Structure formats: C-alpha cells, structure tokens
C-alpha cells in the first residue's frame, strides 16, 4: 500500500488546469445569435431561452458561508450519494471504511464516529437517529439523489437554530416539488463491481397547485474482493471474498396542496462487512450491517399577511440497525451475535416569520420531540444469550428566536439564540451572532460567532457490552469564530476568504475506569481547529462554470497537542462544467487534493489527488438521457484511516491502520422520460 508517500499536487493540478483551459477555450468560441433587439414582442415571448445561472444574493447575506449544490449540479456531475455531493464542498473530505462514510469538516471529524457531529436534515427535519446520532451520508442515506432539488451545507455551529448535533455543520437536503418532474422517468444504471440500479420517478403538478412526487429505487452491487495486508495469512491470504456487497431500496412520496405538504420516505440498506470490525472472524460471509430509515411528516405553511408567515408541522422518524457479528471461526462455539438498535421519535414544531417591524426580520419557533423508543440490544444466536438490552426513552423541547436587523444600507446584524431542554442532558442555551458590513457595493465583510452542543447519545451513555455505562455524561460544547471577506461584483462571480477557529471542550472519549479497568466514555477531550479557506466561483455567460477552493488548516488535541487523526492540513478542489457542447452534451470535471493524514493507529496515509469526469447527453428530444462517469480517472492509489473498531478476533487482535480506496471506477446511467 502506498502509505507515507506524499504526492505533490502539482502533477494532478496541471492536468486539472488543462481541463479548465479546454473549457474556457470552448466558451470563447460561443457564437453570437441574431439581433434579438430587432425581434417583435410576440416572437420574443415565444423564444426559448437558456436560463442564466446566478449566484443567489441570499448566499452573500447569509450569516455564514453557505454552499448550495443544485439538482442541475447533481445531474451534470452524475452524483449518486450524499458523499459525492459533500466531497465537492469547500473544507470537506469524506473517508470510507467499506461500511460507512465519515465526514471531516475543516479538519474535524474522526473516522468511525458516524458523523454524530454533523446534522443531516431532510426538508428541514432531523435524520440523525437518537441511539447513535448517526448522520447518514453514504448509500444508507434514504433519499434518492434524483429527487433532490438542492443540498445546502452550512459549516460551523447550527445549534442556535437546530439544537443538538449541529456541531461542525448542517446539511439540509431539500426535495423537489412534484411539478419539477413533469411526468415519469425510468433510469437504469451499471457500475464497476457489477453494480446495478433501477429507479422510477413520477411527478405532476395541476394548475390548481396540487403536486405529487413519487420515487422508488433499488441498487445491488456484489462488489469486488478486497485485499487487507494486515490480515494476510495462510487461511485467507488477506482477501475478503464477496463481502463488499451493497444493496438498498428506497421509497419516497410527497403530496402538496395549498400550503399543506405531506411526505414520507423509506430506505433500507444492507452492507457486507469486509473489515472484521469489532473483533470478528476475517472473511466470514455472514458479517453484515443493516440500516433502515423511515419517516413521515405533515406541514402547513401560510402567508397570513405581507409581513407574517406561519409554519407548523408534525413528524415521525424511525431508525433501525442490525448487525451480524461473527466472532468465532466457522464451526466453533457461538454461531454469531446480533447487535440491534431502534430509534423512534415523533415531534411537533411551529414557527413564525415576521417582517412587520421595519428593518427587522424576526423568526420565532418552538419544538417538542418525544423519543418513545430508544433501544439497544446484543444477543448470541445459538445458544441464545442476551448480552445487552437497554431502553432509554427521552423527551426534548426547544424555543428559539432569530433577528435579522438592518442598520442602514450597509450593515446587517444577525442574532439568534435557542434554548434546548433535554430530559437526559439537561438545559443548554446557544447563541449566534453575525455582523455583516457591505463596503462599496462589491465587497462585504462578515464576523461570525456561535456555539453548539451535542448531547451524549444512547450508545455513549448506556452501551455496556464491552464497557461500563456512564449515564451522567455532559454535552460536548464548541465555540467558533470566523471572519469572512467576500468579493461579489456580478451575479456570476464571487470570491471569499475566510479565517476560522473552532474550540471544543468536554469532548467524549474512551477512558479506562481506575476501579475496574473497564473502558468508559468520559468528557475528557478538548481540541481546536484553526485555518483559512479560500473559495471562488465563476458562472460563465456561455453556460460553463468554474469553481475552486483551498484550505490550509490545523486541528490539534488541546490536552496533548497531538495532530488529530484523519485531519488533512491542506485541501484543494477545482471543478468545471464545460459550456454546452451543442444542444445535447454536457461535460464536467472535478479535481480534489487531500494532503497526508494521521491514522488512528498513529501511522500516516499519504496525500492524494483524484480526478472525476462525467458526461451527460440527451437524445430523442430530451426523452432519453445518458450519463457516463469515470471516477478516479488516473487510478490513483490512496487509503483512508481505519478507526479503533477495525480489529479481528486473533490474539492479539490484528488491527487495520489504513483502508485502501477504490481505483478507477465507471458508472453508466440511462434515463427515459415519458
């Protein structure tokens, strides 16, 4: 494996720049059309126009640095998972252990922590479950990307609006409206590793404003055999055979009429576990994990007057987890054990948005959630033995208030505060302040301050199979400071520079109990991340686009000063959408460089640069759309850090230090629109 080998980004960079140059050259060749100014009015109204891309003003005035990935971006780039989307976001890297994907935001995010400090929202409602707080961003994420209107990512603390888990950032996935789909589509896909996908979507809107959206998809990838040098022995030769399989099916429905929206989703994913995690027998075909998300929501929105909007909603969300852990060799003793978790929460919320007071935009809201089922269990199958069975239901309530205050033409002060009560973690109050100053029209300066918290989850408090419970855990806390300068001269060009510092305390980590020597979660860690993020985007008039971002950052443990695992110090991202190649073909290229990272075991994985390409073509009057992508075009060999759980049942356990990632992979999708 190519560990400890730092590659200069320059070689890949020069390739990426070559791609960009090609795009620009193509743009320069764009033709001038006929003189539109001479056309009569009726003809102008019948002329088909190419919608201009604009960088929304809201992004500039938001009290943070927001990144928005639209449905059109998802289509042109061929994205299939939320991980694909998040990897294009400035400051974000995502690692993969062949089971789950782990986000690292501005240098923060352990491999193996299940994104507990990243809040994932579907249409504004929390997806993170209440047992593990898991933020689903891989194939277990239950919404098909074809049904997404846009993904908004806000780095930094969001607890002043969203409460617990909005710690390093918030990902809000907003689904499409039924009218946006205009009929039915059927898509089939083929992927490297013999993966197959089928998707069916239907959307329709009536002139009266009633809209219906339906989606169903199924994916099945047998995966490839994987080699793990750490597990190389006479029995298995280190090869996990047929254990990288990944299967899911998903359903989605949304009906809206006159300000009332009802929606429901279901997603179930089964993933083979090739890494023998948590002391399993390596290469046993039975190891797997199942993640199942289901949710439903009913909301009501009404513009009561020009200055008052009211919103109310109820929702229910369920998460089920099941994993099969094979800890003994086949034929010996216990067959296997099963680990399960069930999370069921229902909630109600209301919100009022008022601009009645001149110069102010006020948002006030309240939420109540009852987590009636919050259960974990672990049992051996034959002979049956119950190792763990804990139920810890809880309740949460919150009130919040935000004000966007305009002080004259050039100053906006955005303040917010939210008070959360958690029947387990107690009460906490989190403020946020953003000061925005617009200088002479084109340059704005922002200063941001905020705090956030994460209530310890059921697993950290009560899981006692291997370690001692600690129900008295306090919430983790973070404070962040950020300064942003933005240059935004036209609707098509924007550049920002940001300096940030994140300070965390009371972070949960495993410690050894001095009395009985067992492992126990404790509020012992503190860490901080400091860095600079630069970003620019240019939407060209010929329909092409060019975006880039660079991060230089450092994340350290405050207790011992150590460089945090999985934390890259430099990131570079460049992506370009070429101008339309004629009427029917679009091309996209993306380059991502991640510098070397420390592994959890104290080793290092080398830096790497990856280039992805995607082509989208339409045929037969846009009734057929073909999308072809090559990921990791130059077959760059790179690895992500493994986490503490990646050890097998040998004595002493064999631990994985790094997990090799995919080489070049292909994806082909064909869609027919009826």
């Amino acid at each position: 494996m190519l560990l400890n080998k730092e590659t200069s980004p320059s070689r890949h960079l020069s390739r990426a720049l070559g791609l960009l140059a090609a795009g620009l050259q193509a743009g320069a060749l764009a033709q001038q059309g006929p003189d539109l100014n001479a056309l009569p009015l009726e003809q102008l109204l019948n002329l088909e126009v190419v919608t201009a891309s604009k960088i929304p003003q809201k992004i500039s005035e938001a009290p943070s640095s927001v990144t928005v990935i639209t449905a059109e971006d998802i289509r042109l780039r061929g994205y299939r998972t939320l991980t694909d989307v998040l990897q294009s976001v400035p400051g974000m890297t995502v690692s993969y252990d062949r089971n789950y994907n782990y986000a690292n935001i501005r240098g923060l995010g352990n491999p193996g922590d299940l994104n507990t400090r990243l809040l994932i929202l579907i249409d504004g409602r929390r997806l993170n479950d209440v047992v593990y707080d898991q933020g689903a961003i891989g194939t277990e994420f239950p919404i098909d990307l074809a049904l997404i209107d846009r993904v908004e990512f806000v780095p930094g603390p969001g607890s002043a609006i969203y409460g617990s888990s909005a710690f390093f950032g918030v990902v809000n996935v907003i689904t499409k409206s039924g009218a946006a789909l205009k009929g039915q589509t059927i898509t089939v896909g083929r992927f490297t590793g013999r993966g197959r996908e089928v998707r069916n979507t239907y959307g329709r809107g009536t002139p009266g404003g009633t809209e219906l959206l339906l989606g169903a998809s199924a994916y099945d990838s047998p995966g490839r055999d994987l080699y793990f040098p750490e597990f190389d022995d006479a029995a298995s030769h280190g090869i996990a055979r047929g254990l990288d399989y990944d299967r899911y099916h998903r359903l989605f429905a949304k009906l809206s009429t006159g300000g009332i929206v009802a929606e429901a989703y279901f997603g179930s994913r089964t993933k083979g576990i090739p890494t023998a995690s948590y002391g399993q027998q390596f290469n046993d075909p039975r190891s797997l994990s199942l993640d199942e998300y289901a949710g439903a929501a009913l909301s009501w929105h009404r513009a009561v007057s020009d200055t008052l909007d009211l919103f109310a909603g109820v929702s229910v969300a369920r998460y089920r987890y099941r994993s099969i852990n094979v800890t003994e060799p086949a034929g010996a003793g216990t067959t296997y054990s099963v680990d399960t978790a069930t999370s069921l929460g229902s909630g109600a919320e209301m919100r009022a948005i008022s601009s009645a007071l001149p110069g102010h935009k006020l948002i006030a809201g309240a939420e109540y959630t009852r987590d009636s089922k919050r259960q974990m269990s672990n049992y051996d199958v034959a002979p049956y033995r119950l190792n763990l069975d804990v139920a810890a239901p809880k309740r949460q309530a919150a009130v919040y208030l935000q004000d966007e205050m305009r002080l004259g033409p050039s100053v906006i002060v955005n303040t917010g505060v939210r008070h959360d009560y958690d029947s387990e973690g107690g009460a906490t109050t989190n403020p946020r302040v953003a000061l925005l100053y617009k200088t002479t029209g084109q340059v704005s300066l922002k200063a941001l301050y905020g705090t956030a918290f994460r209530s310890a989850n059921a697993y950290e408090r009560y899981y006692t199979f291997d370690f001692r419970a600690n129900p008295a855990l306090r919430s983790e806390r973070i404070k962040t400071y950020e300064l942003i300068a933005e240059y935004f001269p036209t609707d098509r060009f924007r550049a920002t520079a940001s300096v940030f510092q994140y300070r965390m305390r009371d972070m949960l980590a495993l410690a050894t109990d001095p009395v009985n020597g067992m492992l126990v979660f404790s509020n012992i860690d503190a860490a901080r991340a400091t860095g600079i993020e630069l970003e620019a985007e240019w939407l060209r008039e010929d329909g092409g686009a060019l975006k880039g971002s660079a991060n230089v950052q450092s994340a350290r443990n405050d207790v011992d000063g150590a460089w945090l695992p999985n934390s890259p110090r430099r990131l570079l991202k460049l992506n370009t959408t070429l101008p339309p190649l004629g009427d029917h073909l679009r091309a996209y290229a993306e380059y991502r460089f991640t510098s070397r990272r420390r592994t959890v075991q104290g080793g290092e994985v080398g830096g790497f640069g990856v280039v992805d390409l995607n082509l989208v073509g339409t045929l037969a009057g846009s009734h057929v759309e073909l999308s072809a992508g090559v990921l990791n075009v130059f077959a760059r060999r790179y690895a992500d850090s493994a986490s503490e759980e990646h050890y097998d049942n040998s004595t002493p356990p064999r631990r994985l230090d790094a997990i090799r990632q995919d080489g070049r992979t292909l994806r082909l999708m064909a869609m027919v629109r009826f």
Partner: protein
Amino acid sequence: MMPPSLARFLLRGCLLLPAAAQAQAQAADEYAAKAAFIYNIVQFSTLPNMNGVVRLCVLGRDPFGGALATLEGRPLGNARLSIVYPRSGPEALMQCHILYISASEADDMPALADSARAAGVLTIADTRGAARKGVMLELVLDDRRIAFEFNGAAARGAGVVLSSKVLRLARAIY
C-alpha cells in the same frame, strides 16, 4: 476496471468535443432576451419627463452582462436610449426614466417601487413577486420562455402608459 488507454481516450474525447459542437445554434441567452424584451416594451410605452434621452438604469448587481450595452444609443421615438448605473436608490430616482431593480436589491424593492411611482419612473424587476410588491413590470421565466406581469395601479400612479397591444400579452395584471 477499465484499461488506462480507454480512460485516456475518453478524456481526450472530452477535450476535443467542445470546439466541434459549438458550430450548432443555441437558444437565446436569458438576459440577452430580457434586454431585448425591455427595449421592445419601452417602445410601446409613454413615459413622463422624456426629453431627447431616455435613461434606463440598473440598480444593484448587473445580471445583463454585455446585453444592455447593445441598447446604448438605440432610438425610442424621437429620443435615444442611454444605459446608466446609479449607485443608490435616491440617485436613481433623480436621473432615471426606467429603473431595473436587480435581485440584489430585493429587500428594498417595496420602498423603491413606492418612491419610483411618486417620481414617475417605470420600474422593472425579475424577482418573483415583484409586481405584487408594486413594481410595474415583472419579467418571469415560464417553461423557458419570457412572460411578464403588470401592476396597472402602480403604473397609473406614475403616469406611465403601456399600449393595450402589449397589455393583452401579460400573464397577469394587478
């Protein structure tokens, strides 16, 4: 796994395609069409305070790119069109006959629309809901085509008259 040579072939294909494909015709750019639409509709309007020069102003971030420059000096009856970029709302109301309010000024739009009505200035915007907020002419994109809504009350208040030939093409009149 795909052989490396195939990947290189695909990559080269990507790079060479643009030039070849550009030869085909394209649909009109949104803002070129909107500029043409504004010019067209102004020809069917009677504006107060006109005298030789009609100043079309863009307030806020300019989305037109180079499209408005093609209108500079174009005839409007006996007058000529001139494009101006005022720095503030009050400055715009002093010198403009036609005021395009950019999306970047959306928050100030109701106030701007009110003072423009008092000053006899034709207001235009392409922010959703602008006509309802008192802007006289709102440009909208409806299934990739330009359409418009008209606020007749605001126009009457300003003394702006739009030909009935144009009005019957409006998607909505308030």
